């Protein structure tokens, strides 16, 4: 490979920087599979945007209804018990992405690939499977890509996140769910690849 890839630590900085600035500017964690979920959501498309959950307003309404039904004593009990709840945040998370915003994000990733290759003269329309794929799968590579894609799509939606959402952001925040998800998908990918290497070569 004549094209030297950028060193890993610079890439690490770039990835961290991207996820950090995303959180700062948009008020919510970066996640590609989430954006894809929105784009594929027919309701979001029809509505023009995803239904926005205004957490603060919802909490106000619930507290008001509770006071009305049970009196102020109930609120005192409520506030002491919710202190230990699993959601330490009482400030609403940044608004979820609308359909257009999700589409913009995904399209921009495509553009990123274009810029990365175009600026180095490495852009090339490749319709044939690369040698790295055919050496393992032969012509079955097309099926591998499609079936693998189905698994990636279904798996990331089921897990509620992918490499960015769980791996990059969730792990950095030490979320047990994300740590488990990341170890599972990395571990499975490694195990599968080792098997592929043994069986297919």
């Amino acid at each position: 490979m004549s094209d030297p890839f950028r060193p890993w630590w610079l890439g690490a900085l770039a990835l961290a920087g991207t996820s950090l600035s995303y959180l700062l500017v948009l008020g919510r964690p970066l996640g590609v599979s989430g954006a894809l979920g929105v784009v594929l959501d027919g309701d979001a498309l029809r509505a023009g945007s995803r239904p926005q959950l205004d957490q603060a307003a919802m909490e106000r309404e619930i507290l008001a209804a509770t006071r009305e039904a049970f009196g102020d004593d109930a609120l005192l009990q409520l506030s002491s018990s919710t202190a230990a709840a699993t959601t330490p945040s009482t400030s609403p998370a940044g608004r979820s992405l609308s359909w257009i915003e999700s589409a913009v994000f995904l399209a921009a990733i495509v553009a990123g690939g274009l810029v990365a290759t175009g600026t180095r003269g490495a852009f090339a329309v490749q319709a044939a499977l690369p040698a790295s794929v055919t050496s393992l799968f032969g012509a079955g590579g097309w099926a591998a890509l499609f079936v693998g894609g189905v698994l990636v799509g279904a798996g990331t939606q089921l897990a509620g996140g992918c490499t960015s959402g769980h791996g990059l952001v969730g792990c950095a925040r030490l979320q047990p769910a994300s740590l488990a998800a990341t170890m599972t998908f990395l571990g499975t990918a490694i195990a599968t690849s080792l098997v592929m290497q043994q069986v297919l070569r």
Partner: protein
Amino acid sequence: MNVVEGNGRKVALGVMGLMLGYTLSRLGFTDFGEVHRMFTLQDQRLLFAFMGAVPISMIAFRLLRSARPVPLRRFHKGILAGGALFGLGWALTGACPGVVFAQLGEGKAYALVTLAGVVVGSAAYVRVHAKYLRFDRGTCG
């Protein structure tokens, strides 16, 4: 730093997406051979890039935590099963969702097949989940 609204969000998302796609491409995450070498434990460069990003982010997030408290993600039934399916697919395609989009930008037309699979899998799963499964995957917006 303030959370931006309106068209500023679209611009910000555009910039973030561009950065992500550029980085994934430039690092080599879009190259099946490179990713396969990472998963077969022959070349750790990509793994170091990914793993290096986590502690850097961790430090930064900790510094910011007082400004922006974080709700805990639910550890639901789908986490492990979904992770396994995803890992299997990633080994077969060499691509995670972000990578597929970056590959398209690079001109890798064969990634359209991967994308078709991802779309089918995602859309089918969401419909199955809504009809039959009904547990909170933590993706409510």
